[in-house]
């Protein structure tokens, strides 16, 4: 009994902390507003658009990620691991930077349309609902690819050898090995992307083309800023929480348990198949690389010339952002590990970890402000609050990445560990951490990247001096300095990616496989 209590006390604490961080500020806003206010017709239209675009974006991202992940798993070529890392970059790009890159390629005067024009073909427009979805796929294809790729890599080499010795063709491999793997990985991947797109804000605004592309998050912003209707903002925030919980319930029903059993960690053997498969894989990899990497190249090309003009204030902002990223990563991992380890057995752990994904950062910031205000000058809390909010916001991704691998780990090794009486810290050090090194590294990279792009909660707590890099970028744009803003964007992207890459690499090296 006591042991069981000890086992869940840590995750329960983490879950309570995270749920409290999301729900208490929401409560504070509701109390301040004197209750929830009714939603308007336009809010329901926003909800419809939000659900539709999130579902479509998630479906497309998953669909396109499958051939890419399969190709990356099957093929070995020079620069493969660099390519995998680089292709992860869009996901960690701050929205504002990504939009600049996308417009440089897909915009009205972008490279793609210039090419189409030169060929005498009709041009395309990125603005409109399809632009929002294109941007979301751009952001989330990397996440989907990585999550599915992790799934593929987790199929033990022994099963592939068995399949080969039984003379399985690609169709049979698909049916007996790949499909069961996808059944356990895809629902979670879809869910993660669905939830990211649910709270999309800046993308929908700039590429949406007009007010038809209004998302719930945007409606919250407008209720708060334009109407100062806190009750409506709170109602909308609550709607997001419910959608999140519903999506979570559906995804967990559809997720199949892992059924491969433990392998012996042999180097995987590749069964390349014929020429048709090779062409297919080549197309998948080349297509994804072109789609994901050209906008990034455009950001670099646009930003580099003005890089030397950046003022010392920008470099100070860099330092602030980097410090924030490091601290936030540690906090995220400290929360994510106990929650993910508890998640396969306790549904509430997963629920708590997913909640921040749909927390409106505006409501979160306002609520925290209302809570802190009577006790302390909010300006002194600028950095701690940003840190806490960012750690909470990146938690869902890290937990999402860890859960499938934790399931495999527990299914494969729980009995062995129990028979060896491997428990507590020793189990963590010898079994848990090494087996989870890859997703942990990737997750750490993500959680380091998030605060780098954050703007959300800091405004109410700003002390007028602490400046993060994205805020400085906005201030540059607001002061007509578009070239320097582009340079700051390039810098922001480079730093964010360097952080992400370092964490990801550490994870790879720590993996014994």
């Amino acid at each position, binding site marked *: 009994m006591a042991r069981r209590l000890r086992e869940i006390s840590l995750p329960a604490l983490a879950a309570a902390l995270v749920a409290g961080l999301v729900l208490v500020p929401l409560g504070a806003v509701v109390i*301040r507003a004197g209750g929830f206010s009714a939603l308007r017709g*336009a809010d329901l239209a926003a909800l419809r658009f939000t659900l539709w675009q999130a579902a479509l974006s998630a479906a497309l991202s998953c669909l396109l990620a499958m051939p890419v992940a399969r190709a990356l798993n099957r093929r070995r070529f020079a620069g493969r691991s660099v390519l995998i890392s680089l292709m992860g970059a869009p996901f960690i790009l701050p929205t*504002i930077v990504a*939009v*600049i890159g996308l*417009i*440089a390629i897909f*915009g*009205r*005067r972008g490279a793609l349309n210039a090419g189409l024009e030169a060929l005498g073909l009709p041009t395309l*427009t990125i*603005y409109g609902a399809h632009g929002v979805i294109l941007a979301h796929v751009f952001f989330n294809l990397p996440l989907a690819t990585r999550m599915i790729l992790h799934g593929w890599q987790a199929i033990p080499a022994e099963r592939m050898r068995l399949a080969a010795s039984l003379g399985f063709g690609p169709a049979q491999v698909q049916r007996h090995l790949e499909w069961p793997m996808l059944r356990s990985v895809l629902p979670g991947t879809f869910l993660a992307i669905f939830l990211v797109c649910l709270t999309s804000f*800046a993308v929908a*605004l*700039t*590429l*949406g*083309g*007009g*007010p*038809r592309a209004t998302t719930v998050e*945007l409606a919250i*912003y*407008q209720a*708060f*800023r*334009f109407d*100062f209707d806190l009750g409506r903002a709170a109602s909308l925030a609550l709607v997001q929480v419910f959608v999140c919980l519903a999506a979570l319930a559906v995804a967990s029903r559809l997720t199949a348990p892992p059924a491969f059993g433990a392998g012996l960690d042999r180097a995987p053997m590749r069964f390349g198949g014929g020429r048709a498969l090779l062409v297919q894989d080549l197309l998948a990899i080349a297509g994804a690389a072109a789609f994901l990497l050209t906008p990034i190249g455009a950001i670099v090309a646009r930003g580099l010339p003005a890089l030397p003009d950046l*003022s010392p*204030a920008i470099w100070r902002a860099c330092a602030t952002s980097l410090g924030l990223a490091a601290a936030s990563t540690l906090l995220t991992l400290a929360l994510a590990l106990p929650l993910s380890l508890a998640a396969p057995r306790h549904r509430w752990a997963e629920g708590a970890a997913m909640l921040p994904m749909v927390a409106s950062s505006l409501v979160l910031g*306002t609520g925290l*402000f*209302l809570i802190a*205000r009577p*006790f*302390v*000058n909010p*300006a*002194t*809390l600028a950095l701690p609050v940003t840190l806490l909010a960012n750690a909470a916001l990146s938690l869902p991704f890290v937990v999402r990445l860890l859960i499938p691998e934790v399931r495999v780990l527990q299914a494969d090794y729980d009995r062995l560990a129990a028979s060896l009486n491997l428990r507590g810290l020793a189990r963590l050090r010898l079994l848990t951490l090494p087996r989870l090194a890859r997703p942990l590294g990737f997750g750490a990279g993500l959680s380091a990247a998030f605060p780098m792009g954050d703007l959300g909660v800091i*405004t*109410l*707590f*700003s*002390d*007028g*001096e602490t*400046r993060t890099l994205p*805020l*400085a970028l*906005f*201030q*540059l*744009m*607001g*002061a*007509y*300095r*578009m070239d320097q*803003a582009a340079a700051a964007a390039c810098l922001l992207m480079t730093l964010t990616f360097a952080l992400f890459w370092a964490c990801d690499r550490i994870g790879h090296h720590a993996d014994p496989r």
Partner: protein
Amino acid sequence: MKKTLMLAGLFVATAAVADEKPVLTVYAPDYFTSEWGPGPAIEKGFEEVCACDLKFVAGDVLPRILLEGDKTEADVVIGLNTDVTARARATGLFAPHGQDTGALTLPIAWTDDTFLPFNWSETAFVYDRTKLANPPQSFQELLDAPDSLKIAIQDPRSSISGLALLLWVKGVYGDKAPEAWAKLAPKVLTVTPGWSESYGLFTDGEVDMVLSYTTSPAYHLIAEDDDTKVAAIFPEGHYFLTEVAAQLKGTDQPELAQKFMDYILSDAFQGMIATANWSYPAIIKPGFLPEKFAALPRPDKTIFFDETEAEALRQPALDEWLAAFAK
């Protein structure tokens, strides 16, 4: 327990710093306090004459004041727009500025005794004259232009210039505003949350014209020595925008706050607005505008709705705008 101690520690730390000189707390928008905004020059200038420490708190000024109510620590707010002064006034938190508004040289009459304008400009569509050969010469020509002319505007629900466009169209077309929007909507390439994103689209060549200000070309002329960016001047008139400041009734530094309100209309403050804020100062005296700035073309007519009219028009004009884009 530990947490309370920590919070208390933070409290003491701020109090200790504040002890040296009296502090004047000024709430200002985000753009204000960066080295590229007017904040640093204002802070330096005022601290030279006040024997105090001016502290800017940057962020969403009005939402923050509304959240804080009479417990606010602000002594002065600066950078509010006329679209929100009605709501700000309704809080009853603000005190008269005590300045002679007769000294102002705005293109409109200003008699408000609470909110004091410190700069102004007018909305305008800005274009690149090397890229747009035949720019529209009037608002009507803009509406009648082929839909291949692409413009970027800002969302009236999140941006002051976006809201100003609604009122501009209302001022020019009145009851015919829905028809005007129906003609304008197909030319709108996209609606961005704020001015910066729109202007970025314009400087990247993505749109032909951008909703900005009559004073925008001044930045390019003076800071970049670039005379290709031009504001299209329409005979129908342009919508007036001003940023205002006000002092709070409940300030614990009433003398300093009053001194700051005086400082706003001083030559030192007004003289640096043109190039610190890229807008016209509220008082124009000889030498306040650089030559190239003073030579900018000016519209013959200025359109303006006072806060009561603007507040009444806000929702119906927004509904018309939404309807035009719903098609």
